[in-house]
């Protein structure tokens, strides 16, 4: 089975996000890039599945982005243990629909894919859409926000647990091939080993130009303008006195000044 994992490079969560002067986007000059945290769960699950199959199955990591930096996440995935890597090169900021269309295009070129893993959401634009749209373009079932993944004995289906509101869970069976969006809780992603990192440096990365994958310009559906930082919060009020006074004052302020109780 060819196990696919779609990963994205995103700004480090430590990054201070700054808005361009004209509000057209964010400044990316000083940003440190990392693998989207949810994608780490996707890579880990892909590796676990490959090892469980133990039949020569391989893991192929795919990313969409400017190849000069986006290949870094592929090196990370390779260092964790992925077998193959594919970059879809584009300089543009693509929306979820175009990204998913390109990924589906590249996945179709891979022979015999069984499971496509993604993170449930990328923590940059926070859209949480690409996973489901890939499934639509591949014409296969999907489920997202997955915290448990089990391959059926006949290897023709998977049983998943999907987390929903209020601590509830949906137990879902998908026939393969299918697309699965990983959530935190699915597993504990491994760290890249030193030999893994050395090996990853030498691996070849397959390249596609975005323009070669036949994604029409009309597939771009969503863009943004008027980027803004959140309004500044009012200065905070530190409450003085002994503990009893502090507690009583806080309750009074919440009721009478803030009017939230």
């Amino acid at each position, binding site marked *: 089975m060819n196990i696919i994992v779609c990963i994205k490079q995103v700004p480090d969560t430590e990054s201070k996000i700054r808005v361009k002067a004209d509000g057209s986007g964010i400044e990316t000059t000083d940003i440190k890039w990392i693998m989207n945290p949810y994608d780490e769960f996707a890579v880990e699950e892909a590796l676990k599945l490959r090892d469980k199959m133990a039949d020569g199955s391989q893991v192929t990591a795919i990313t969409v982005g400017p190849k000069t930096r986006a290949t870094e996440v592929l090196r990370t995935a390779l260092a964790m243990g992925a077998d193959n890597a594919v970059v879809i090169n584009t300089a543009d900021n693509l929306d979820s629909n175009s990204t998913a269309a390109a990924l589906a295009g590249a996945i179709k070129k891979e022979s015999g894919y069984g499971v496509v893993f993604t993170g449930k959401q990328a923590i940059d634009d926070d859209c949480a*859409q690409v996973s489901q749209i890939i499934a639509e373009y591949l014409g296969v079932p999907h489920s997202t926000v997955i915290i448990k993944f089990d391959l059926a004995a006949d290897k023709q289906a998977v049983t998943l647990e999907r987390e929903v509101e209020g601590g509830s869970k949906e137990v879902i069976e*998908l026939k393969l091939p299918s697309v699965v969006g990983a959530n935190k809780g699915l597993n504990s992603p491994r760290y890249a080993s030193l030999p893994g990192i050395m090996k990853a440096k030498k691996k070849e990365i397959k390249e596609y130009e975005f323009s070669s994958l036949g994604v029409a310009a009309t597939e771009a559906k969503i863009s943004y303008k008027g980027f803004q930082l959140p309004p500044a919060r009012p200065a*905070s009020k*530190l409450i003085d006195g002994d503990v009893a006074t502090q507690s009583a004052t806080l309750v009074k302020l919440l009721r009478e000044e803030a009017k939230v*109780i």
Partner: protein
Amino acid sequence: MENILVFVEHKAGKVKGSSSELLGAAKKSGATVHAMALGPGAKSLADELGALGASVAYVCDSENLKNYNPEAYLQMVSGVIKDKQPAICLAANTSLAKDLFPRVGAKVGCGVASDCTSLTITGSNATARRPMYAGKVSAEVVFSNSSTKIFLMRPNALGPATNSPGKKADLVDLPAPSTDLKTLIKEVVTGTSSKLDLTEANIIVSGGRGMKGPENFKILDELASVLGATVGASRAVVDAGWVPHDMQVGQTGKTVSPTLYIACGISGAIQHLAGMSSSKVIVAINKDKDAPIFQKATYGIVGDLFEVVPLLTAEFKKILK
């Protein structure tokens, strides 16, 4: 007149609050409002949907739609959008809609704006803003190549709807979905918590590493039960295994915007702040006066949470009983 389709979630014969908000906003815009409701009980919503402003409701009460099945729901919703071509489609940004609508959008060839926090409807057009980078910035959504604009609205973003009882929505029956599916819902395990989900909670009491251990979360449970609040946590305590990961607030947890957020023993790391700094009022209780959480707090108490929290619980009890 312009046409807005509202995807309605319902439970125990009632429209969910997050869906009635959408109907309220749609009605206020002056557009013709059509609703869509699926699963057993959908047909009993005619009065409530009418009172909330829907003139027509597309319904299917098939048992096969009782639980959310992505494939079956995709068929139903994309079918109605293709057929009715609404200018705008609204759904609440719930677990169900977040999973379903991106795929609906792709199927009908339209864009989807996820997790919007504001919406302005003018005729057949609508604009929305949404946070990105877990709320570190926000931006206005621009649609292109989309005959229907699909918006997923964060619960509580639009405010409660007004109800005008007496009107009834005309029910239009939809054919049941195909049963030849590759997706099977085997079971729905209902959470034991009677509390609202963090993303919908009005008040959140959150604990961090300063709680010292899982056993101490009971003092937060006590405070939360007096306030009718939901308990959240920082990643540090989730990773330590003190509480389940669905309690995590922050950039890689839940983004929340309650009216009141009480942070106990949380330092205020940038990833935590990203997930909660749009809360209306923030209270920080921390023994380190230099903790970054105090920079975002509306009110701060520099002190030992093990002394402060029980006293606060007692004070709230006095006024809330």
